[in-house]
């Protein structure tokens, strides 16, 4: 079942060696989410 992201406040923690935050941001915005903050981490 799809996650209901409409109107939800979303925190994005992207990964430089995985999926970076800006790509996640575009995707979840298309689901109707409100992005509160997003950051791309380097886990290494």
């Amino acid at each position, binding site marked *: *079942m*799809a*996650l*209901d*992201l409409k*109107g*939800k*406040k*979303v*925190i*994005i*923690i*992207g*990964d430089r*060696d*995985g*999926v*970076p*935050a800006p*790509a*996640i941001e*575009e*995707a*979840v915005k*298309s*689901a109707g*989410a409100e992005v*509160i*903050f997003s*950051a*791309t*981490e380097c*886990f290494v």
Partner: protein
Amino acid sequence: MDMENQARVKAAAEKYNPEELVVILGGGEAESSGLAAETVTVGDPAFAGPLAGVSLGLKVYHILEDEVKEACDPKVYEEQIGMMEMVLDKEAITQEVRRIREQYSKY
């Protein structure tokens, strides 16, 4: 998760209704994704940052999980995430994040 982001997550959980918050991860490996998921649910596993001993219990998903994918516009998801969906070990990553969410998320 780095100290600055832990502080920002903590502040967001205090400012907004935690029930309305969703954390979406983009970690490239199951282990790093799992650690980040733990940080926003049971607290910083390294006991070093602002979330050490702080159990926020937030809802946490990985962008590769099918529930998230299905919520997004398929064209946008394919453009933004499609490539990494093929490259990363989706099964291992999503299993680990789901396990932690089901165990520790309060919402």
